[in-house]
């Protein structure tokens, strides 16, 4: 039965203009859509195409294109297939619309993305700190945030240079290139 549902979904998505639609497998569909059209698409998928479960919202930081990519993974129990709706929003204002009214779990995904990437979702019920309650620095998962530099600046963790390590290094032993300097 799910076979013809898939076909029906393909031509449904096919005849919507300016939407890139690519079926990866019988259970995976990727859709690229404009940022202003995404809520309508989700409403359509939820209402008509039985995609009632929002399993995740993930965010990708394209720092070169100055853009965030938001991916909404919605799942249907009847067709047992996943639709990933990709959209791009500009990085600078980093503000987007919340889909809390469609899927209530979105509140937590959006709160997490807000904390990790700084994307502000208007209409989302709760935008406070979610997991990093002790963190007051910049959103850590943005690409311009250099975690290692932060660590070296705030934590004095490598001064542990006991005498036996110094003797080893004088004889030329020890590690020549430090593990963190190795770049593949």
């Amino acid at each position, binding site marked *: 039965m799910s076979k013809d549902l898939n076909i029906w979904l393909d031509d449904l998505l096919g005849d919507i203009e300016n939407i890139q639609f690519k079926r990866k497998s019988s259970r995976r569909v990727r859709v690229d859509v404009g940022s202003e059209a995404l809520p309508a698409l989700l409403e359509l998928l939820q209402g008509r195409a039985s995609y009632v479960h929002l399993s995740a919202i993930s965010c990708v930081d394209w720092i070169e294109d100055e853009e965030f990519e938001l991916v909404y993974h919605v799942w249907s129990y009847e067709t047992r297939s996943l639709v990933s709706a990709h959209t791009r929003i500009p990085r600078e204002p980093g503000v987007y619309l919340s889909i809390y009214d469609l899927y209530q779990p979105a509140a937590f995904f959006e709160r997490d993305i807000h904390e990790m990437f700084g994307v502000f979702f208007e209409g989302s019920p709760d935008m406070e700190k979610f997991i990093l*309650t002790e*963190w007051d620095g910049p959103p850590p998962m943005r690409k311009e945030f250099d*975690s*290692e530099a*932060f*660590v070296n600046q705030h*934590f004095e*963790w490598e*001064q*542990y240079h006991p005498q036996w390590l110094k003797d080893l290094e004088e004889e030329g032993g020890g590690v020549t290139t430090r593990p963190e300097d190795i770049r593949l």
Partner: protein
Amino acid sequence: MSKLDNIPVRHQPTEAAGRKRTNPLAHVFDELVKFCQSRSMFMLHYCTGCGAIELPPAMTSRFDMERLGIQPMVTPRQADILLITGYVSIKTLKRIILTYEQMQSPKYVIGICSCTVNGGMYWQSYATAKVLKDYLPVDVYIAGCMPRPEAVISGMRELMSDIKSGRAQNWKRYYENYDHYLGNQQKLFGEDWQTPTDIIAEARHYGLMTDRTLGEHTALLEKHQRPLEALEMRLSAREKQKT
């Protein structure tokens, strides 16, 4: 912690400051208590990180820690050993310090997994504390990115021999160098960091105060500390304590 001499070295087993020992019999009694402390260690059932998954196999039928007299206990009040297993995130470190201060000494800390030694594979993460030793005195380290139960038990036996020989006195260092530890904690958690346990009063009560217990960091703590005196039973509020 930049100067090397500031690193507290392993504590020589000095005589217990609080008690003056005169008769030899007291020595025999001390030996018995030390032996019993080594043979009956209560382990706090608190999984701080990923390494805790190695503890159930150490307790169940194959390795059976109860042979060594080690029992898992639920609250810090009843426990002697605090196992810090796996990476130590800043959030968890607050709870670890709270739990450590709620434990009753002689108490021991075992750092399991290499993340407690020098940050391990999460050394680059902004959210983990790298060197556990800065924040509370650690007795035994068990390296390995999750050591097997045999390694955990060998670490326990190492601690048992330390206790029996009297070398495991690190818990005193927390009282004796409280300012050093508090400084590191305040550096991480901010100036207004405070735990409900009144360590300074406890050090004074048990006679473990030294000149290094109080310092600039504890002065900082004094400024904003909430009153922590015990609710003494009193008949009337006439002699109002200084609030």
